[in-house]
């Protein structure tokens, strides 16, 4: 199973959960739009998943028969949607940094989290030099302090 199949499967799972959840509520609250929409999305997602898996199987069979001929003609899945490589390690690292940002913003202050994130992320993930990263972190931190801390009452 490829990533695009997992994405479709997740949409199907979410719509199935909402459809099942609709039974918990009475009246129009659920047995109106939520029931109808989640039901339609579930059917569409499952149909897409089945069609996609069958197209992949046919594609593999064609490639096995003609290794040099490339993708089969008449394939329903457009080329741009096929199996894009996902940099899982990069994605996980970015989200680890963002999780750190949230933790510091929540338990310390966003005024510390913003420059710390920009500096550390710039140096460690983006492999930028220390000085430009420090300048960027300081300038954005200052702008954020002025706008959000000095002006906005909600912060």
């Amino acid at each position, binding site marked *: 199973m490829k*990533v*695009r199949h997992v*994405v479709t499967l997740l*949409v199907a799972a*979410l*719509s199935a959960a*909402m459809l099942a*959840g609709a039974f918990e*509520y*009475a*009246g*129009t*609250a*659920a047995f*109106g*739009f*939520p029931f109808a*929409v*989640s039901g*339609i*999305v579930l059917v*569409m*997602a499952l149909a*897409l998943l089945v069609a996609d898996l069958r197209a992949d199987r046919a594609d593999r069979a064609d490639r096995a028969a003609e290794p040099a001929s490339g993708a089969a003609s008449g394939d329903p899945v*457009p080329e*741009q*949607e096929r199996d*894009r490589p*996902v*940099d899982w390690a*990069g*994605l996980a690292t*970015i*989200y680890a940094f*963002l999780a750190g*940002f*949230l933790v510091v*913003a*929540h338990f310390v202050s*966003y005024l510390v989290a*913003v420059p710390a*994130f*920009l500096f550390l*992320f*710039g140096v460690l*993930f*983006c*492999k*930028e030099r220390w000085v*430009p990263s420090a300048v*960027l972190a300081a300038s*954005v931190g200052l702008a*954020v302090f002025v*706008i*959000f801390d000095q*002006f*906005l*009452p*909600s*912060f």
Partner: protein
Amino acid sequence: MYDAILPALGVIFSWPGIAFLVGGTLIGMVFGILPGLGGGQVLALLLPVTFALEPEYAIIMLIGAAGAVPTAGSVAGILLNTPGSAQNVATTFDGYPLARQGRAGYAIGAAATSSLLGALVGAAVLITILPLGRQIVLSFSYPEYFMITVMGLCLIALLGEGSMWKGVMSAGLGLMLAFVGADPIEGLVRYDLGTDYLYDGIKLVPVMIGLFAISEALALLLDKKAVAGERIEFGMSGVWRGSLAVFQNFGTFLRGSILGTLIGIIPGVGGAVANLIAYGQAKATAKDKSSFGKGDIRGVIAPESANNAKDGGALVPTLIFGIPGSLDMAILIGALMVFGITPGPRLMLDSPDIIMVLIGTLVFGNVLAGVILLGWAPYLARVTSLRSTTVAPVILVLGLLGSYATYGNFGDMIVALVFGLVGYFFHAYGFSRVALIIALVLGGLIEKNFYQSMLVFGIEGSLTRPITLGLLLATIAMLVYPALRASPGALLSRAARKERIKVSKDEG
């Protein structure tokens, strides 16, 4: 009432009125550019500041700031695919592809000019229809609201982003997300997973920031590219060409402005719907729509003219009935009441000078914001040439802070991060982020207005109302017209292809 125009201009352009206009406009532009911050926040910020001022100057500062927000909101949408507010979402559909082609100045020029002129059209319509505003506002009820939202949802069929199947699925997902929270009829809380956070539903701003800003930052970081490629226009010539494009596509601009004003008049519909519907009509009525979504300037002109023109329309119910059509207008009413000015039918008779100051500030604030944006455009366009490792972390930080700033809820930052991933994978695998956001904007309105229409008017009563019927026919025309218009061309090209094949066979 019109006698008050000249004295109002005197107030705006005398000292210190002009200083408050410039100050308010500049502050509004800063809030417009920052993702997640908009008219509501800037008005809430300025409100206590204006208590010490004369009512006229307070209005100049508040309206100047609120009017500049949608103009400036287009900048981040065009440069970084990060709409400043929900009313700039549609601008990103073609604005960001233009920036990626190195034509950010062209897009900003068109956005600034159409915003400026759109506000003028909105104000002109406002002045003209203000005496008739009462009848116009009262002629809209739940069935009309419902049909307008249906019209907005039908845009998904026109967007043509990726496969239609996945587009409809994405819209379904957006509707499902819109159903989270309190049911509009019975008040029963649905799908809240037992948390207080979901009691009010999934909020639009963090989802929008996640889907567009954070997912784009992820793509920039993982692809390690600048926003634009190698060929970037930095000079003013691109900006002027963008301005000129508004006049070359004057029909698109005018339709967007009038649509924006009309949608603005209807309380509770708002700028997000105005700019989406304006984008949809621009695409539906275009002869060649193949370039939409890939960097068509008409896709910038229509939504930007609509979201500025809607401010003029939104003042109609605000001033005539004291009904705030949006958060901005609610705060504005609050400000007016602080100064002892009560919006309502008597306002036009008792204080025409205040109304004219308000309209004049809306016009000149937008002119000022448009001119400033045109002047800055070449410098702003340089952002697209910065390395992704410089731009993307800043987008991440500002996106997260912006999603928090709107409601002051920490959970919104987590929602923005979750939808950042959703947006990244949706974009990578051909699902439509645009369809999802359109459905999320409209889902709650559709459900509420459908049930209210059924309860109050019934099916027959709803469909026999002239405006509802007109909107229904317009929606059908919007869906059918492109197909009808395309078919002769398609038939011709098919016939020409057959002819070519026949000729080549004959020659062979």
